[in-house]
């Protein structure tokens, strides 16, 4: 009986071996050059400070991919499964080839012994066959999806082509990548089949079910010895060519995501966006050269596979504004890779319009959707810093910033009017700057000055008083916390506001800070120095706590059927989803979730300073209009519950504009709490 093992080149003349290794060398050289070409930028880039806890970072990234935690499968189990097949299939096949190479090129010639024989070899070949099948099945699934066109984001149909992207090149790359993989996979099986045919072996010498099956198929063709040899050679070269072409092609295609994507996952920052970094450049440049980026940012740009999940969930996109998160990343990548990125023109203005940059509501849906954890928002905010430094923003935003700089609020009202809302509350509210309190209530601009929000603020105060909470407000000295000021790129003003507030807080004695505004909450929690050991709470978290401790006891159950909108800065930004829901549950209401709830919540469109801007909207329905339609479409739901002053204002206006006032009522969660007390 023939020895069981894999004879790699023995079936072929010597020149094959030489030719193969030469071609492989070329392919590998091209690969290395390609990687170098792409990677040399990384050496020019700035530091990113993400080398901390390297081992746990790598472990986490591996767990993300292997333990099915990746966002690929969120809302798209088909893609999740297909990618699993591809990933594992490719890894196993790659590993298999590696083992083969080691055995063939090192173990045999250097040690004179082969380890790929006997039972080892049998299991090896079975494993490879099974995973090879999975690999091809996965590819088949991916190809099927594209051919059927069931996923619009893959066909770039709605992509803003005006952003100067070469969509045709993308699509070609998409198909080429799939084609090369498929070629390598199928040709590999075919080669196996012919080899087994020529070896004349079968089970139990071969544990390759596909190979054996293919061998019998070939046998049925009645090939002569020479014909079989030619077929074997031809298929072998086909397989080799496919594999080598793939290797060479990797750095120039989306296949590069294997490296860059993994890198992006390893070096990700889970506080990205929540806690922005102070500028590192002395003067914002709008991205003029490679050294304006950190290497982590370049890595993220290279990681993008154009899946378009970010594009799909973007509220600006949905309302017709000229912003695509995917477009932004691809444009930046193109810019970095081109000769443009050497200190000449700024990216902002040449690669992207100011209008697009201002369209973002900083809702974080793009970053949350990205399977490769690319950080779109910090890039965008850096661009905004540039535009602000040049004074290129719309009039409404300028007016708001001027008012914020002068009066500490965007309403052009003097500081002394900040407590005006307290007139709606019969009792006196403690001044936290004069007396120690347990909860320092940082009220926030909208809650203080917008008349519609003032009613809600007064109700909140009424509830706090009824519960006998020891709380106080800052009064005149309070200024806008600065969350959105920072996110429009006015870093200097943000610092001034923050420093002013921190000064004020220093002299106050309190345990925790509570606020009703998620924007205020985000910056106080993530971007302010820790408040003397206390916590920063959203009022829903506080209410939840009080419910659990029994201090808040609803006296009746509310018989409403409601839906709840997760505010972007509370949910996606800070992971607070359960507290408001637990509160609602305790109030006895029937909660019906919208399709886009929790982390998938759809932004009201007011964030990122959009609420201050007056420029024309996108022509399609605005985000708030889309959202109230979504809420109103739920069967039997007559109340949309909100937990953010901006949401309250945006949705109340949208309900009116849509003529849904009879159908849907917008209520703040505190109104329900008060009713149930």
């Amino acid at each position, binding site marked *: 009986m023939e020895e069981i093992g894999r004879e790699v080149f023995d079936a072929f003349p010597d020149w094959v071996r030489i030719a193969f290794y030469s071609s492989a060398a070329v392919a590998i050289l091209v690969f290395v050059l390609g990687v170098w070409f792409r990677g040399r930028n990384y050496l020019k880039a700035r530091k990113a400070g993400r080398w901390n806890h390297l081992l746990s970072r790598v472990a986490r990234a591996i767990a993300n991919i292997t333990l099915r935690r990746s966002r690929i499968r969120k809302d798209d189990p088909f893609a999740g499964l297909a990618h699993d097949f591809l990933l594992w299939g490719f890894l196993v096949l790659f590993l298999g080839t590696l083992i083969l190479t080691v055995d063939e090129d090192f173990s045999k010639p250097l040690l004179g012994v082969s380890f790929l024989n006997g039972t080892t070899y049998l299991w090896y070949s079975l494993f490879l066959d099974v995973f090879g099948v999975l690999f091809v099945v996965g590819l088949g699934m991916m190809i099927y999806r594209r051919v059927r066109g069931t996923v619009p984001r893959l066909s770039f149909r709605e992509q803003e082509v005006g952003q100067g992207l070469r969509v045709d090149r993308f699509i070609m790359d998409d198909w080429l990548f799939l084609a090369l993989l498929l070629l390598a996979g199928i040709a590999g099986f075919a080669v196996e089949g012919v080899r087994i045919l020529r070896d004349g072996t079968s089970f139990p010498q071969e544990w390759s079910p596909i190979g054996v099956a293919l061998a019998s198929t070939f046998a049925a063709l009645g090939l002569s010895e020479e014909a079989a040899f030619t077929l074997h050679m031809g298929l072998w070269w086909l397989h080799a060519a496919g594999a080598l072409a793939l290797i060479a092609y990797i750095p120039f295609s989306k296949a590069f995501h294997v490296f860059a994507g993994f890198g992006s996952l390893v070096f990700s920052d889970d506080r990205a966006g929540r806690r922005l970094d102070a500028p590192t450049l002395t003067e914002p440049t709008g991205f003029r050269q490679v050294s304006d980026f950190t290497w982590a940012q370049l890595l993220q740009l290279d990681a993008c596979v154009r899946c378009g999940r970010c594009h799909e969930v973007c509220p600006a996109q949905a309302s017709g504004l000229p912003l695509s998160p995917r477009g932004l990343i691809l444009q930046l990548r193109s810019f970095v890779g081109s000769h443009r990125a050497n200190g000449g023109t700024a990216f902002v203005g040449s690669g992207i319009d100011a209008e697009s940059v201002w369209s973002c509501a900083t809702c974080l849906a793009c970053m949350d959707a990205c399977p490769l954890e690319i950080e779109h928002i910090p890039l965008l905010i850096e661009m905004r810093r540039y535009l602000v*430094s040049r*004074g290129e923003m719309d009039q409404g935003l300028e007016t708001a910033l001027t008012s914020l700089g002068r009066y500490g609020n965007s309403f052009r*009202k*003097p500081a002394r009017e900040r407590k005006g809302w307290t007139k709606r509350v019969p009792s006196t509210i403690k001044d936290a700057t004069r007396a120690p309190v347990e909860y320092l209530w940082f009220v926030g601009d909208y809650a203080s000055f917008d008349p519609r929000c003032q009613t809600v603020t007064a109700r909140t105060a009424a509830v706090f008083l009824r519960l006998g909470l020891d709380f106080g407000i800052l009064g005149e000295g309070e200024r806008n916390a600065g969350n959105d000021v920072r996110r429009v790129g*006015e870093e*200097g003003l943000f*610092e001034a506001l923050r420093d002013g507030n921190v000064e004020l807080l220093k002299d106050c004695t309190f345990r925790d800070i509570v606020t009703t505004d998620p924007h205020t909450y985000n910056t106080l929690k993530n971007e302010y120095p820790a408040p003397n050991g206390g916590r920063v709470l959203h009022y829903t978290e506080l209410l939840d706590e009080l419910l659990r401790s029994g201090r808040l006891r609803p006296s009746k159950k509310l018989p409403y059927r409601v839906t709840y909108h997760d505010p972007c800065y509370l949910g996606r930004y800070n992971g607070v989803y359960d507290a408001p829901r637990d509160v609602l549950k305790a109030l006895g209401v029937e909660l019906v979730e919208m399709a886009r709830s929790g982390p998938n919540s759809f932004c009201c469109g007011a964030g990122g300073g959009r609420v201050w801007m007056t420029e024309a909207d996108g022509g399609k329905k605005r985000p708030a209009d889309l959202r109230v339609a979504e809420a109103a479409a739920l069967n039997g739901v007559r109340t949309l519950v909100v937990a953010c002053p901006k949401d309250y204002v945006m949705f109340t206006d949208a309900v009116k504009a849509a003529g849904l006032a009879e159908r849907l009522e917008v209520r703040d969660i505190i109104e329900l709490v008060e009713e149930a007390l």
Partner: protein
Amino acid sequence: MKIAVILRQVPDVVEELVIAESGRSLAEDEVTYITNEADEHALEQALILKARHGAKVSVLSVGGDEARDALATATAKGAEDAILVPMPFENRGDNHHLAALLTPEMKSAGYDLILTGLSAADQRDAGLAGLLAARLFLPYVGGLICVTLDPSGSVATVRKEFPGGRLGVLEVALPAVLGIQSAEQPPRYVPVSKVSQAKKALQPKVLSVPAPSVAGLPIQRLLKPEAAGKAEMVPGDVEQIADWIVRLLRERGIV
């Protein structure tokens, strides 16, 4: 080409206005100052002309500490020259006094164009621009919303507002003084970081001339307006007021 812009600090009407015990002026320690809005427009117009014609912009800022901050903002916006004109509290709002004070400096500096706001919120006499023009024997046109210069820089074409939305187009030979109502575009925003930098680097020339004994008419008494007829205030909450208004409109046959 040399352009001068005069910025005046005036009481901010957004804040509460407190009258002093004497009743003749505002209470000095209760006043918050802001740059006169029309003067901001004058600066903006000057910067627009600078961008178009490469002029040099000098800013004279009148008042107390806030006047210094206004110079920092002006230089951050692009003005080249910063001159501080300290003005004690009792002389603020008096354009006759200010015009007399500025005349020697303006005469010697030889500006081609002097821009300032048409009027200041706290003035009680004539506009600064007209008085200054007369003292310098220069032509003056005010109430302008647009200023363009001819290529030689010796003639300005201006658009002057008239009632009913009409605009007069006039030609003014330079040097001249112009009173700006509003600039061709709203005053630009300059980020806080730039202003802070400018503040640190600021070393203004301080105009220290003896105060002239010229003054406008003194105010005998400053008071909250006593109008001939004051509105009848409608009581109640929003709902009640809405009902009341509807009733009134029905009575008058308007609805």
